[in-house]
């Protein structure tokens, strides 16, 4: 699974890279607009390890933010499914808050929390939390009639059992949403770092942009892609393991 993901990412990356080179050489653009092979190679040699550490830093924050979002979304999702009114209220609130562009909200967060870890974490969580929440509410609000009917008729149904049934029956959907939101957590962290943090790959990209250095950005994009792919594969594996364990119980 891992090698397939990496292989797919490399294909996409190098197709994009080839497209850039095609534009560069067909339009005879300078290295300032699109860097050439030698410049990219030099940036790679100079910044690979530095950027790898920065990406790992970002990934660590993204994973924390992602976990935070999953826990919160599950909690709110369970409450949200209790009654129709609360569920509908949370859903509308989530849609509304999700509609705010994070770049407009981020300055307020940074003023309140400073430009340290907490701001990055919160923004990462915010970006992936709402899509997760909406999906979890949707999944947990949907009855699995054929199974739930049995427990209801035997009067053994309680809310914990109901959540378990709905989660298990929709495990594939849940895992897809969780894996999908992992990329959002990564994007959220990078955006946060780009806007105001002092660490992480988003911060490095910002500096590279100040210096109009696309070679560095290409190196950063490569590492972001590889690390994100590894994280996604790990999540998919985790999902399969959970499903196997639940199935065997």
């Amino acid at each position, binding site marked *: 699974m891992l090698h397939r993901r990496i292989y797919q990412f490399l294909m996409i990356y190098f197709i994009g890279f080839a497209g850039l080179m095609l534009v560069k050489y067909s*339009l005879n*653009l*300078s*290295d*300032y*607009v699109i*860097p050439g092979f030698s*410049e990219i190679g030099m940036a790679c040699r100079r910044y690979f390890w530095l950027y790898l550490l920065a990406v790992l830093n970002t990934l660590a924050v993204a994973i924390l933010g992602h976990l935070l979002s999953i826990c919160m979304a599950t909690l709110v999702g369970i409450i949200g499914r209790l009654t129709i009114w609360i569920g509908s209220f949370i859903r509308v609130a989530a849609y509304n808050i999700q509609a705010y562009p994070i770049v407009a909200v981020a*300055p307020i967060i*940074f*003023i309140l929390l400073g*430009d340290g870890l907490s701001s990055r974490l919160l923004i990462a969580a915010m970006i992936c939390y709402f899509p997760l929440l909406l999906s979890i509410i949707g999944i947990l609000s949907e009855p699995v009639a054929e199974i739930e009917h049995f427990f209801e008729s035997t009067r053994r149904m309680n809310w914990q059992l109901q959540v378990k049934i709905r989660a298990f029956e929709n495990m594939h959907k849940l895992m897809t949403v969780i894996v999908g939101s992992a990329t959002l957590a990564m994007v959220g962290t990078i955006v946060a770092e780009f*806007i*105001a943090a*002092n660490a992480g790959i988003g*911060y490095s990209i*910002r*500096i*590279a*942009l*100040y*210096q*109009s250095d696309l070679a560095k950005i290409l190196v950063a994009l490569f590492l972001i892609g590889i690390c994100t792919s590894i994280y996604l594969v790990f999540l998919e594996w985790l999902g399969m393991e959970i499903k196997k364990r639940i199935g065997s119980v």
Partner: protein
Amino acid sequence: MQRQLFDHFGLPVMGLILILILAGCTPEAEKPLEEVSYRLKWLYNISVVGDLYALDSGLFKKQGLAVNVKPGGPEKDAIKELELGHAQFGVASADQVIRAVSKGSPIVVIAQLFQTNPLHWIYRPDKIPLKTPQDLKGKTIGITHGGNDETIMRALLAKYGIQENEVTLFSVRYDYTPFYQGKVDLWPLYRNAQAPIIGAKLIKAGERFDLMDPSKMGIRFVANSVVTTRKMLEDRRETVQRFIKALLEGWREALDPANTEKAIALLLKYNKETPEDIVRQQLPATRILMMPSAKFRFGAIDVAAWQQTEEIMLAQKLIPVSVYVEKLLKPMNNK
């Protein structure tokens, strides 16, 4: 017989001649205008008032040009647009120009807008009296990592032999809270655009402020200049001349104290977010940075300052080798 001939041919011929004469008298403005695009460095603010003045007062049109003045922004790079053919003229800072040329970009500088770099550091003179550069020792100084201000501050520290461990460099963003709270002693800002806003807030809070100008300490790092491609200058030199003539006239008029009201009204038309009282403070501040004296020839290129900018970039390894910056400077303001 002659009378008959005149009646038959003379009148129509004379009519035709009259039509041709009238056609020749058609105003030049009715000729199709030559379209060019001009990418600014930043959004519509006080630093582009002259560009807007040239556009709004019809100065470009008078030169036979239909100029599409496009606002800039943090991710917009005029030099890249010139190379890609999306614009024919643009505004770029000197470090951008030098960096681009060092990577083979075929651009030239045709006018220099700011004669003094607007990048200054704001500080509270009551708290930190800055009499000499040595007074920077022990201070917490705001810089934007990767930005111009970092380069300028590092050059300043190097010039006066101040080691990096003798100051605390604080990474800044758009949020001024650390400066307001006194955590940072000196904060970088643009003297003409931001200083009136931040200064007003400090005064409101009962504090005094002053500005540290690196150029007064011997660091003359060039800011915004007008650029075009070498090809454009060679193939369409006459267009470049007409463009720069209109542009510099626009700037001269916008900065002329006699046109203050017109310039302010124009900027407020394009930038509705900045309050009028702030724009009133920004305009004279811009005038000082662009027109050092009333007789100054607007747009003149300060070759020595460009050379110093290149030397600073070389010293800080921002470019690998010299680009011989003087070769890029093609002043058009005296044509």
